[in-house]
């Protein structure tokens, strides 16, 4: 079993937004499953982590929520990305790439990199 990681502060919002961007409107369960699968089960999300994050995104206007019928005829609350949410994914993804590049440069094995 792979080593479990804690969800790093600030990264969960981007994971949720990106999941909604890729899969379209989705309920909390679907988002959690998708994040766990994408992380190859290195991340697990309990409700106390996931739902406050979803609510925060809703408050910030990046996602909207509405109750709908799910594919297997259950009622579930579906979250979908807003236009502002789409812009936010692009912006945060850019920032993460920049940060990751920077950290990668520092962690490079060769001395000359620094």
């Amino acid at each position, binding site marked *: 079993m792979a080593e479990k990681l804690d969800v790093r502060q600030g990264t969960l919002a981007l994971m949720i937004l990106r999941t909604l961007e890729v899969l379209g409107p989705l309920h909390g369960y679907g988002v959690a499953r998708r994040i766990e699968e994408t992380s190859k089960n290195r991340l697990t999300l309990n409700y106390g982590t996931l739902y406050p994050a979803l609510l925060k995104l809703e408050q*910030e206007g990046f996602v909207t929520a509405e109750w709908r019928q799910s594919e297997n005829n259950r*009622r579930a609350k579906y979250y979908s990305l807003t236009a502002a949410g789409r812009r936010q994914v692009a912006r945060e993804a850019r920032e993460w790439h920049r940060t990751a590049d920077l950290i990668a440069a520092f962690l490079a094995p060769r001395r000359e990199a620094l």
Partner: protein
Amino acid sequence: MRHLRAALARIAGFFTRDRADDDLRDELQSHLDMETAEYIRRGMQPDEARRRAMLASGGLTQAAEAVRDRRGLPWLENAAADVRYALRALRRSPGFTAVVVLTLALGIGANTAIFSVVRGVLLRPLPHRDGDRLIYLRHSVDGPGRGNIQFSVPEVGDLRAGAPSLAGIAEYSPWFGTLQGDDGARRIDIGLVTGNFFEVMGLAPAPPPAPIATTGPASRR
């Protein structure tokens, strides 16, 4: 912008929390149901599936609490709960409450009274002009009741002539008189001032007050 938006959403959330609580309970329950169904689909017994789903959730109550902290204005809700608790506690012990209320009332009352005096006597400037240029002259001789004796007319004349640094000298003497009316006499306090008093103090004399008592019988009835 997004912070403002989030703040407004929180304020709105404060007023709609009951409905939102129902909504949240339904949402968490639907998550749990879907997860349970998934475990059953994978071949677990329903009881075991439910137990596993419950375990993975990390606790519905904790989750609801975490969402609630994010939703409304938790500090305001906490403050309101504290006030309610305090009021309940006070109602349970009326004796203690009375002592506290009385202590506070006396303390506040005494402070207010003292401050009123301090303000009237020390803080509020007197209505005269140029308080920093005004000096008070008095003289005294030894002996009881002679700490502030009156100046004689020649003394005032000497001061006027001999203290050119003073722009003006005005005199004030307390005096009293007796006013005799049809229904008895009464004492009235009088301040005698020199003609330049109002000019020196920078005051305009008030218009003469209505007579305190007239000789006619109608005024007292």
